[in-house]
């Protein structure tokens, strides 16, 4: 028993110490370990969050918004034909140092070339390092977009495109557009340990990397020479805490200031807690039910509209999302610019749906299939439950749905091949540009194996999609996107289900934390009182 008593005493002593933790160090309870610290190699938000304090991009999303703003490029001009973008780089930007490496020069065009050529040039000395996947660079179609990237002088970069593309600026603000130090890369290559480049990051960001212990902790220190001014914090710590309940407990105790992803079950208590500030915002995503227009009777617009009316969306939101979702009307979430507020969703009206089906010549009861994904996704906590509820709704109008699912990779492949009649999926936005959502309904994506699961190709919609891609004027683009939302609602290739709602609990003493529409966790500009 004396052992236990002594342990208890030690415990109490340590508890006293922990409350006296550094006043100006912000602790973020994150959900997992990063794969490495080079965003171009990664695909998970966890890894991006861990690298972001250290780095900058040419252009960046203004914190808390989807607006593209200057980063390491202080300005840029687009040529009249829309094919050439010239970036003017910021001068006097300093890189961090490590124990072994001290930069001899400021940031310049060579660093930009290095960062993109590593991804795009298969013969680049760093291309194959750390697996060399570069999923986002490829997924965002960069090899097909960029004709060349040239250094005009130390502080000027010229990017030539193969065709005009307005969303590319938003692409460059994504994490794969992170700018690394070419000098550091050379240094490590000469030292014979290029792999370290992705493990010990050196950037121009507001925090420099201090250390990482897998599955435990990542430490950063504020970088006093940051080009946009030193951060109000002295330090930043990611305390890796995989369980949401444990994260909440740590937040309650003040062991962390900001936490990732609360349990929906804890939200009510968080709202009541005097020490916690609970922010929320619709996520940059959509869950939808695609109707395959290549499979009759879903080739008929009226049938698709009838399905929209047959499904009790409010019940889905209430039962499945439990407060962490909001009903979706348009194919883009309301946090994206050009969202059309004037569009009205279909009302829930099974009787009218039945009539419309009869008018469209559908003989009920009719057998259909309804696919649901086997996994939880950010926009859909339980696809199976949604499918079951939809199945019950559809049965009321005479459509007997057989539920179908496959393993995730296989499921996605078969949907993209258009094997389904009705199939659930969703999308999480990459760069906040409306094009990044609307392309899902474009004709190019309607090919077999493409991402337009409804295989719906509408000329009015597609013409606008292509036109908007080439325009640089935001007002003109907005008008086109607004019209496209009207067309999409009328034509109804999807049942737009929901946008998940993202919650971000922080301690009250945290000031100026902004919730990101991208689900990012950003700490530059945040302070602690």
């Amino acid at each position: 028993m004396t052992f236990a008593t002594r342990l208890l005493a030690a415990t109490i002593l340590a508890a006293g110490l922990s409350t006296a933790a550094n006043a100006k160090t912000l602790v973020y309870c994150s959900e997992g370990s990063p794969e490495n610290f080079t965003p171009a190699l990664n695909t998970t938000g966890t890894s991006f969050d861990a690298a972001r304090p250290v780095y900058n991009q040419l252009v960046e999303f203004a914190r808390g918004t989807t607006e593209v703003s200057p980063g390491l490029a202080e300005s840029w001009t687009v040529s009249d034909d829309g094919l050439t973008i010239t970036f003017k780089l910021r001068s006097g930007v300093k890189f961090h140092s490590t124990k072994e490496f001290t930069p001899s020069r400021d940031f310049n065009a060579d660093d930009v070339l290095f960062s993109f050529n590593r991804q795009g040039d298969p013969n680049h000395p760093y291309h194959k390092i750390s697996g060399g996947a570069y999923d986002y660079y490829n997924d965002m179609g960069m090899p097909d977009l960029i004709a060349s990237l040239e250094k005009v002088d130390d502080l000027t970069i010229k990017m030539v495109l193969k065709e005009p593309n307005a969303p590319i600026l938003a692409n460059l603000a994504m994490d794969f557009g992170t700018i690394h130090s070419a000098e550091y890369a050379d240094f490590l290559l000469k030292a014979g340990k290029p792999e370290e480049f992705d493990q010990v990051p050196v950037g121009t960001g507001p925090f420099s990397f201090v250390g990482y212990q897998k599955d435990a902790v990542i430490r950063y220190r504020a970088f006093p020479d940051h080009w946009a001014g030193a951060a109000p914090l002295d330090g930043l710590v990611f305390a890796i805490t995989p369980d949401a309940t444990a994260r909440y407990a740590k937040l309650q105790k003040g062991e962390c200031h900001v936490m990732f992803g609360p349990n929906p079950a804890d939200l009510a208590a968080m709202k009541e807690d005097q020490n916690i500030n609970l922010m929320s915002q619709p996520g940059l995503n959509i869950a939808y039910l695609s109707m395959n227009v290549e499979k009759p009777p879903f080739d008929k617009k009226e049938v698709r509209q009838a399905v929209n009316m047959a499904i009790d969306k409010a019940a889905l939101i209430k039962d499945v999302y439990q407060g962490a979702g909001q009903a979706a009307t348009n194919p883009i979430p309301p946090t994206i610019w050009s969202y059309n507020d004037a569009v009205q969703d279909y009302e829930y009206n099974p009787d009218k749906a039945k009539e419309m089906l009869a008018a469209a010549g559908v003989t009920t009861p009719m057998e259909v299939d309804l696919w649901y994904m086997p996994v939880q996704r950010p926009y859909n906590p339980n696809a199976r439950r949604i499918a079951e509820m939809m199945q019950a709704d559809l049965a009321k109008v005479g459509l007997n749905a057989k539920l179908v699912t496959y393993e995730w990779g296989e499921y996605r492949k078969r949907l993209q091949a258009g094997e389904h009649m009705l199939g659930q999926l969703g999308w999480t936005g990459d760069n906040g540009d409306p094009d990044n959502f609307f392309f899902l309904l474009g004709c190019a994506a309607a090919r077999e194996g493409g991402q337009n699961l409804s295989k719906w190709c509408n000329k009015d919609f597609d013409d606008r999609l292509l036109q908007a891609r080439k325009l640089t004027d935001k007002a003109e683009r907005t008008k086109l996107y607004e019209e496209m939302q009207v067309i999409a609602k009328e034509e109804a290739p999807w049942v737009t289900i929901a946008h998940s709602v993202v919650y971000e609990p922080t301690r009250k003493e945290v000031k100026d934390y902004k919730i990101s529409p991208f689900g990012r966790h950003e700490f530059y500009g945040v302070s602690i009182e």
Partner: protein
Amino acid sequence: MLAHFVRRLLLTIPTIFALMFLTFVAIRLVPGDPVEVRTGERGISPERLEEFRQQLGLDQPIVVQFFDYVRDLFSGDFGTSIISHRPVIEEFATLFPATLELSFFAMVFAVLFGVPMGVIAALKRGSVVDHSLMGVALFGYSMPIFWWGLLLVLFFSVTLDLTPVSGRIDLLYFFEPVTGFMVIDAWLSGEEGAVSSALSHLVLPAVVLGTIPLAAIARMTRSAMLEVLGEDYVRTARAKGLSPFRVVGLHALRNALIPVVTTIGLQGGTLLAGAVLTETIFAWPGIGKWLIESIARRDYPALQGGVLLVSTLLVFVNLGVDLLNAAVNPRIRHAR
């Protein structure tokens, strides 16, 4: 004795081979491969999928993959993690001490409380004390670890503010790991309060992980004690007028401990299974959590290497227990 040792040692070889093969096959039976699991809604183009599969050697027939794997193993190469691109053996070496440290303290807790519980229950056989102690043991045995862990966190950390919620040491302390055992590293660092901070972080996870072994040990101690207490030599000891403490502590308990030691040795597997959940709740950077993540992300090399290393260790622990038993019990070592 030597023949027994050699026989047991030789038996471990097919066991380890079987383990190697089973892990290799099992993870490949789970649908989805490492490349596809990584991609989201967008999917991946067939060309890129092929390229990555080729890079990882997944395009080869499974038999070829297996022999490549075995060949690499014999040259001491456990492969490279698909996720972190670091050698599996290095990741294992970083994380394993945390699991070992946690398991050690869990065992200390289990023995420290389990043995006295068993002894008391045996001495008070049939009484309220016996029933309640064995009730507690049964409760501990059937407790879902996740629930139990969270319950303790909410009570001791959040409500009473006695222990930290999770982690291995207060974030205040920052030193490079030397041994990987936090208590030792904290002591080596010489920083004031580091050791007590590390210990305080161990309390709840060790209690949670130690609960099941505690129950097993308490029950085993009780039945072993009951058997021994009925022996003639105990009655003789009592008749000699020895103090109850000497009778129980020196004569009965020492003999009763033989099966208890076996039980303790065999809890290795239980500890590892429990570590997966315990490590998740308490953000404990050990191998349990690492292995689970490797399954989720189909990190074949990490999973194969990790499971092989762990199970080999378990096989040797069991072998050790076996030999220990043989050493103390001649009936075992002479049996065929």
